[in-house]
């Protein structure tokens, strides 16, 4: 689509190219040199803006906001250096289909930990951070609120309950809406855009409010028009559009926050209840590829095995009771193995590791060092699975023998 200017009878073409691909594809395209001369980058992924800023691909701009921005303690909506600007607020959590939960006699999950409960086996869905910027926010929320080791452990155990890892983030709300799965891990606006009865959403605690942003790109064809459009998105008129039913996003304009409808927003209530934690975008940017690669190597590519082992554990619990001391011991051992991550927190901070996997795009394009590293991770995961399999085999044999006696 395009916009034409009548000014001096010289047409100004403003074409809006829609990237119907993953956020990481947009980042890759800009990092490769912005050869299609995009003038504006407009996205929900605060991580993406920080990655592009650190690569010096964004323009320094000083937009004239005509609306004062809401102030949230310790949370910066705009880039303090002036390279990108927040226009809408979001947070991550989970959505559910009430009809589905009722049919399956499942309780509504109260918190992140509840999603690890075996009752949700096969009822959850999420996307992968390597293909979805908003899913990256979900994964980072785990890691930043619980810490590297604990956060990964929870994610790995939760993945045992996943019905699937979807290729696109919007496939999660579609699947929950259609009843394909009961619960989906999503960013708020993906859930709220589904104004259907029985579809509900809850923020995880603590919630990390993240701004959706807009920025000017270096190498764009029409910098002046880019600034004009950016100013408009940040203006009060632009902010009001976020309240349209089809868009349903939380504006950052303080003026609009006095509106009664907005006061009912779950995210704003959490703001008042001190339930927020600032999202560390610098930390996220440094380990962006590391987190994406680890998630895929440990979860996306190994989901079938994880689900299978977790199901065997659940079946044992069902047969012999969760309170059985031997089952409880087994469960602790299984969780320890399934929740292990091949990269320690200290290693995760190593800049040379980040550098080594900075440019991973496809499996075929891996260099020698990357292949070696990923093979080590794969072996680590396989060994853990093998250990869990041994534990389960042994438990099944001994429980069967005891039962016969």
């Amino acid at each position, binding site marked *: *689509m*395009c*916009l*034409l*200017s*009548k*000014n001096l009878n*010289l*047409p*100004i*073409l*403003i*074409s*809006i*190219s*829609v*990237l*119907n*691909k*993953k*956020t990481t594809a*947009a980042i890759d*395209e*800009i990092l490769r040199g912005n050869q*299609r*001369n*995009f*003038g*504006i*980058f*407009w*996205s*929900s*992924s605060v991580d993406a803006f920080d990655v592009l800023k650190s690569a010096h691909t964004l323009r320094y701009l000083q937009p004239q906001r005509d609306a004062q921005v809401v102030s949230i303690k310790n949370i910066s909506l705009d880039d303090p250096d002036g390279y990108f600007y927040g226009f809408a607020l979001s947070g991550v959590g989970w959505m559910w289909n009430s009809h589905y939960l009722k049919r399956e006699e499942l309780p509504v999950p109260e918190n992140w930990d509840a999603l690890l409960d075996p009752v949700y086996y096969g009822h959850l869905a999420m996307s992968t951070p390597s293909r979805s*910027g908003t899913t990256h926010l979900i994964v980072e929320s785990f890691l930043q609120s619980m810490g590297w080791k604990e956060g990964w452990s929870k994610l790995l155990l939760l993945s045992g309950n996943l019905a699937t890892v979807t290729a696109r983030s*919007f496939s999660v709300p579609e699947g929950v809406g259609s009843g394909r799965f009961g619960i989906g891990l999503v960013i708020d606006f993906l859930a709220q*855009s589904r104004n259907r009865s029985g579809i509900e959403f809850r923020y995880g605690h603590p919630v990390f409010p993240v701004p959706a942003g807009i920025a000017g*790109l270096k190498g*764009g*064809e*029409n910098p002046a*028009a*880019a600034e*004009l*459009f950016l100013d*408009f*998105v940040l203006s009060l*008129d*632009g902010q009001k*559009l976020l309240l*349209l039913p*089809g*868009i349903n996003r939380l504006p950052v304009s303080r003026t609009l926050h006095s509106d009664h409808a907005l006061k009912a927003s779950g995210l704003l209530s959490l703001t008042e209840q001190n339930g927020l934690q600032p999202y560390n975008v610098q930390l996220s940017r440094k380990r962006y590829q590391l987190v994406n690669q680890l998630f895929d190597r440990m979860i996306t590519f190994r989901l079938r095995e994880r689900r299978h082992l977790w199901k065997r554990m659940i079946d044992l619990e069902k047969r012999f009771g969760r309170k059985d001391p031997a089952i409880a011991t087994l469960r602790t051992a299984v969780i320890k193995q399934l929740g292990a991550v091949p990269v320690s927190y200290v290693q995760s901070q190593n800049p040379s590791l980040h550098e080594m996997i900075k440019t991973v795009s496809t499996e075929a394009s891996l260099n020698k060092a990357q292949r070696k590293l990923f093979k080590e991770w794969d072996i680590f995961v396989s060994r853990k699975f093998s250990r869990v399999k041994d534990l389960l085999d042994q438990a099944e044999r001994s429980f069967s023998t005891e039962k016969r006696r």
Partner: protein
Amino acid sequence: MMNCYHWLRGISRKSLWLAIFLCSTTLSLAADNSTRRLTILTSFPPKFYVPFVEKFESAHPDFHFCSE
């Protein structure tokens, strides 16, 4: 005859230079015209960005929203 040839040759050179000048001016205007293009890279769906573009168009009468 020779004088006429030189005259014609002179005219041709002038015409040639004029043509080159006009051509380069036109090309430069065309290039200027093409630089008036703004492309926005976004992962947002049309449901999200179309209302923004339409409102931007109504706020800035110089611009017109159209399909490529």
